[in-house]
């Protein structure tokens, strides 16, 4: 069952230099109980896409077009009471870097019970009981709900953030760079936790990361974003077995492979384009080793290369 369907999403920011098209025509779907990975370089619009779904954009940002269909509601259009009833209760988010944004002078447990008390008609006692269950669920000792954030390590704080996102039993959780600031062993623990929660609670997840290998291990499907657009989309195994877009290929090659030979991985030279004056043709053309004349002229459409495998490049063939 499709839980979330995003179609032609465009999210822009008003800036002094002009309109910045952070997300510029993005399509994807998330199935119930499935995890979708959103990968791409810093600044390509991953966080903006997530905030659009949650309708939590900063003041200068706005949804300029497209549909965000969540269980029959177009999130791009809902407002007021309706929006409040969906946000946090049906969809929630673990913000990028949020584990460092916990209120330092407030007990951790109280910070989690807050959204419960706000969104549900329950008393303190029920909320506290729920917080204890949530602690248990994310692998923290329920005895520690009265601790302060500084008494927790980075990995434990990230568990708290996940518990907070799960507080109102949502159907979809968006996790923005959930392991980026953590070291490898803690990263493995958090990913294992997310995977087991997904199974146990039949959660749908959107996991955002610039680290493709992290996503490959945790997500059923993958979207590769570049400069505000999705350039490739397929299930994870297919993306790695059979990458089509030159950018995807470049990203995969940029990973050191500890199981392979000891060779320096390739890098993708250059920087992403300015999103205020986006290039007319393919946005990747400036950095693409395959670019031909047509790439500067015409924007490549996202076409289905194989069943459920999409790529946006002039030189991939529809299968």
């Amino acid at each position, binding site marked *: 069952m499709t839980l979330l369907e995003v179609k032609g999403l465009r999210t822009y920011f008003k800036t002094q230099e002009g309109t910045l098209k952070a997300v510029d025509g993005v399509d994807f779907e998330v199935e119930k109980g499935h995890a979708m990975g959103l990968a791409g370089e810093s600044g390509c619009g991953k966080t903006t896409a997530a905030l659009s779904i949650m309708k939590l954009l900063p003041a200068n940002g706005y949804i300029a077009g497209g549909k965000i269909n969540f269980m029959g509601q177009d999130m791009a259009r809902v407002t007021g009471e309706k929006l409040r009833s969906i946000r946090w209760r049906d969809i929630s988010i673990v913000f990028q870097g949020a584990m460092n944004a916990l209120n330092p002078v407030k007990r951790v447990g109280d910070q989690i019970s807050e959204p419960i008390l706000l969104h549900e008609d329950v008393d303190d006692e029920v909320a506290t009981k729920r917080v204890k269950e949530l602690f248990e669920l994310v692998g923290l000792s329920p005895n520690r709900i009265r601790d302060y954030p500084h008494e927790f*390590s980075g990995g434990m704080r990230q568990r708290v953030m996940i518990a907070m996102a799960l507080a109102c039993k949502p159907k979809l959780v968006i996790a923005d760079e959930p392991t980026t600031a953590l070291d*490898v062993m803690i990263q*493995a623990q958090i990913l294992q936790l997310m995977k087991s929660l997904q199974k146990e609670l039949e959660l749908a997840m959107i996991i955002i990361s610039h680290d493709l290998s992290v996503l490959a291990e945790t997500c059923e499907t993958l979207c590769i974003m570049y400069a505000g657009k999705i350039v490739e989309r397929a299930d994870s195994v297919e993306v790695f077995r059979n990458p089509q877009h030159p950018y995807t290929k470049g990203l995969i090659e940029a990973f050191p492979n500890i199981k392979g030979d000891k060779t*320096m991985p390739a890098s993708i030279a250059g920087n992403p384009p300015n999103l205020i004056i986006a290039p007319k043709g393919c946005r990747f053309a400036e950095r693409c080793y395959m670019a031909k004349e047509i790439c500067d002229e015409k924007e490549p459409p996202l076409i289905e290369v194989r069943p459920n495998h999409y790529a946006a490049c002039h030189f991939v063939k529809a299968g």
Partner: protein
Amino acid sequence: MGNDIVSVKNLQVWFPIRRGFVESLLSDEQSYVKAVDGITFSIKQREIFCLVGESGCGKTTTGKAILRLVEPTGGDVAYFGPGKDELLKEVTDASNRKKTSARVYVADQEKWAEFVETYDMADIKKAKRVMGENAFAGILKRAKTKPDGNDLNMAGVKNDADRKALQPFVGKMIVDTRKAKATIGEQKLTEILERAGIKPQADDLNIASIKNADKKTLRPFVKKEFVDIGRAKDAMGEKALAGILKRAKTKPDGNDLNMAGVKNDADRKALKPFVRRVKSNWVLMSKIPKDRKEELLKAGGINVRTLSKHNMKAMRQKLQIIFQDPYESLNPKQSIYDIIAEPLVVNSIGANEAEREQKVTKALMDAGLRPPKNFMWRYPHEVSGGQRQRVGVAGALVLDPDFLVADEPVSMLDVSIRSEILKLMLDLRENRGLSFLFITHDLGVAYVFSDRIGIMYLGKIVELGPTEKVIKDPHHPYTKALISVVPTPDPKDRTEKIILKGERPDASKIPSGCRFHPRCPFMMDICRVEQPSPVFVSEGHWVSCHLHTKGSSAEKMGD
């Protein structure tokens, strides 16, 4: 690959845990965060040596200690790189003038055998086996609890009731005046001293005769205190005291007992069969005959740890560091030019602004920020993350160093540009002959980039060897776990993950025996009590784990 450029031996960095006033009254014992706790490795010229480990295991502290950005607590750091000869000559000349003898580090102990300083170590395991646990425990007890004749070091007395019983007999209280000065201020300290009419001995001060309020002020800086055993015995009776002494038994370090602590003649004699004389790597200049002085100065290394402030300034130019976080380490209010020129100004290098600009330009070029003019006058927030990291590299290059500590230089960067920065460093080695201590928690990066790897856990190196051997043939359970959790993109390459339980370990509470034992899937009884020593695996490859100790039951079982 050639000779060593930097050699680190038994390096220790302990940070005293700061305590509140009340806490310091309740317990007299100073505890430490043992961030680096006796590590040994050397880095060859033009080599990239990589330290890998979880957050908090002591990687950054090791890097900083080599450069003396933090002061080591123990051990040696020796430098053999370019410019060493001049510096060594300066150091020996200076010590000649002061009529002291300079100490010179020699890598080849055999060659300088007749001159190196020595000390005695007793093999604890052997001693125990031969003379029996009890007899040996007695020696330890005598050695560790009575180091100063009639005085008992209170640090060894852990039992609270015992501490309380002994409190009335505490005589000397030695305060670390440097620390006191840093915290309460020089003026206040001087006032206290004047009131008491005493003078500190070197950096230490006995505060036994200081009164009340002043004593309280200085209490937090007490580092050692001793009990007058004679008085204690008279007052509390011999039996009570004997009980205390027994309980106070402290643990020796690793499997060796330093004989310097064993003062009792009978005990020394009893241990004699198990003692081996250990050679240090240090030679006193004054012991060297005239005709070999030249040779020693050529072969010897500089003792970075004992360099004076003045000489250290010259040394720093050869040893540089690229800091962990390019976002935090660059001052946002300074232009890139100012950031890179700062070390030149601080070290008074370059006769004028034009000369400095030339050096900055070259550093920017070498760091791949080309053309330099386009970058020099921008501010850190006006360049991309990758370029910001290159600014960090340029800042380290401007003094023309020979050895670079690169602390997680690519961890904050997008995967797509990581290799660019790594390749930049490879180019620097190629073109400038640089050597690197590379610090990372990402084994994938360590694998493709380094020549040798040291795996660090809680302040110790647990496995060390050529990169390919450590990654493809890991021996330590911790190394195996670390390798297993590196995410692998290709599903066909996936193997089972060994996810260690628990948060990262705490350097202020180091477990007994093998410090990895609480998280080790292969833990045996011996692991809880005995610290494993390094075991040879193959050429240049060492591991510290009882599973691989020769003749261990585990090995017999056929691991």
